[in-house]
């Protein structure tokens, strides 16, 4: 029964105009973002520039971050990007007093004059390039204590500030050496087998689309029965609600992942061409990343669309998913470099490099993906429950009980 319905649903999806629009959008988006892929080349010694690397040692991180802290403290307003949008936070007097204590504890500067003098003195030159003028930390300040105080500051500011855990990793930016550039290239070819790095970049871009597009397909599918007045007919059939809903759900996931896997053949073939013969490639990398990284995103987006469409018989799921997607995409912009995956709906890793970051954040990423896959199955189960109630004539939002919107006449 399940197999039969599954095939039928796949055919239904293939006939859906929304489905073909999604494929068209995926193709256009892929072409605009990854249409002309540039592949990394082995660095040569003596090059003028090897690029920059975010982050430095503990001392550099503390100096750069304290540079931000003292200048923002003096101006009385703090810049934050809670979801990628600029937000100015003006702390209360009590909070400013606490921030002043933190400035004193971390830099040893207590009066405004001392802070201004330190900021003026900091306008010197350094091998390290900072986002603000570096300020030296107080002697004896440990990095652990510094991190704890910065976390407290970030909490007071509502998150997304220059003192958040993520920002501490990128506040200091240093020029890359030849050795670092070579190590980065070796990671790409040896640990990532070349294709792995580009599969991650592919997942980064396609994840943006799969975070929102599946909800349109799910909402359309959910409303189709009502539009074609087939609800009663289907409800009277023998197939259980679980079989009907799960066959629908899995068919949509399979049909959504199919074009993603087919599109991934384009960058894979380009990788094979670009790598030449000297690199041992992982030919299955794009499949692994598509299933492990992208599929949970498609699953949750589809599930949100299904459950809310089934519950309300409206396109509410589209709006909810759009808001979630919006918040997720903008809030993860500070983690574009990869390695900081958190619980983002759309994990970002917008570079073929940073294998180290990926490796370090892998368990978090795996937990993230497993969580969304689990929640999506749970939402599909809730959809089954709602659907079975509606089949029994309960919870009919458009029925006579809740759906009567006729105006009351006084006559």
């Amino acid at each position, binding site marked *: 029964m399940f197999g039969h319905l599954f095939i039928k649903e796949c055919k239904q999806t293939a006939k859906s105009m929304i489905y073909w629009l999604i494929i068209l959008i995926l193709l256009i988006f892929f072409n605009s973002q990854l249409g002309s892929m540039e592949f990394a080349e082995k660095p040569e010694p003596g090059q003028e520039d090897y690029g920059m690397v975010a982050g430095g040692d503990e001392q550099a991180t503390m100096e750069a971050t304290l540079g931000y802290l003292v200048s923002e403290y003096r101006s009385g307003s703090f810049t934050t990007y809670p979801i990628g*949008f600029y937000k100015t936070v003006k702390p209360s007097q009590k909070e400013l007093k606490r921030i002043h204590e933190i400035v004193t504890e971390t830099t040893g500067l207590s009066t405004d004059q001392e802070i201004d003098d330190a900021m003026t003195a900091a306008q010197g030159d350094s091998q390290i390039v900072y986002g603000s003028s570096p300020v030296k930390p107080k002697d004896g300040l440990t990095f652990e204590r510094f991190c704890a105080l910065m976390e407290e500051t970030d909490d007071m500011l509502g998150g997304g500030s220059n003192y958040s855990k993520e920002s501490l990793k990128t506040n200091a930016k240093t020029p890359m050496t030849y050795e670092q550039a070579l190590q980065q290239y070796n990671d790409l070819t040896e640990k990532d087998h070349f294709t792995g790095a580009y599969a991650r970049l592919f997942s980064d871009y396609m994840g943006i689309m799969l975070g929102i597009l599946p909800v349109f397909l799910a909402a359309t599918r959910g409303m189709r029965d009502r539009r074609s007045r087939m609800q009663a007919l289907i409800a009277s059939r023998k197939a259980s609600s679980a079989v009907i809903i799960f066959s629908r759900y899995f068919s949509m996931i399979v049909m959504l992942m199919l074009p993603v896997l087919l599109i991934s053949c384009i960058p894979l073939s380009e990788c094979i061409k670009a790598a030449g013969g000297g690199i041992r490639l992982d030919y299955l990398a794009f499949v692994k990343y598509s299933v492990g990284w992208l599929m949970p995103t498609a699953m949750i987006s589809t599930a949100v669309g299904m459950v809310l469409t089934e519950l309300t018989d409206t396109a509410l799921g589209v709006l909810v998913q759009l808001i979630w997607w919006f918040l997720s995409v903008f809030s993860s912009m500070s983690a574009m470099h990869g390695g900081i995956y958190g619980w983002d709906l759309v994990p970002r890793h917008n570079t073929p490099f940073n294998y180290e970051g990926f490796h370090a954040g892998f368990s978090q990423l795996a937990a993230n993906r497993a969580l969304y896959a689990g929640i999506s199955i749970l939402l599909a189960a809730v959809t089954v429950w709602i659907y079975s109630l509606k089949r029994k004539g309960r919870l009919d939002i458009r029925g006579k009980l809740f759906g009567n919107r006729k105006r009351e006449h006084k006559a």
Partner: protein
Amino acid sequence: MANYLEIARENIRHNLPVHAVTAGILLCLSPLVLGVKNLPLADTAKVLEMYVALIGIILIPPVFLPEQNPDLRDLIRSKYTKISTVYSIRAIEAVLVLALYLGVYILILHINGCQMEAPAYYAGTLAEMIFMGGLGLLFYSLTDNLIAGYMIPVFYYITAMGAGSKYLKVFYPFSMTKGSYTEKYWLLAGGVILMATAVRIRSRK
């Protein structure tokens, strides 16, 4: 005239509130996630173009929704008032609600000390709203599917975010952030044409 007012009144009573309330909630939520105080010029434009303008997608495409059922369309066609007039009145009402919301939002930004070139920002954001909404309305009319009406402007928005002005040229929606207003004339003209075309197509279906 009385007929037109009655059509507008019925729309306000039955169709408009749910979408207007949704758009209003979206705007009311903005201070939780966005800065709406003391913003510099470019950041004020960013909030308006990238967040506030999204309500155009919520309010304009559902203009055709009450006649989703083809039988209803046949019924309305049998009436003296043209169906295109009914759609046009609803579309104008949607734009008026957008204009009102945007005006109130910009006023709040102004009171909160955000820097702005108020008339230009107002007109520019409204033009973007009309374009995105018009795009949705056109695809709704072409496909008879509201979901497509939401999906295409969302894709347009994402393309603008990702590819910037490279592909969209004069139809790039976030130009005010970069200090350019030329694109807004194109968006306004394009939006009006899209809406008019959508009404025409839908009226013949």
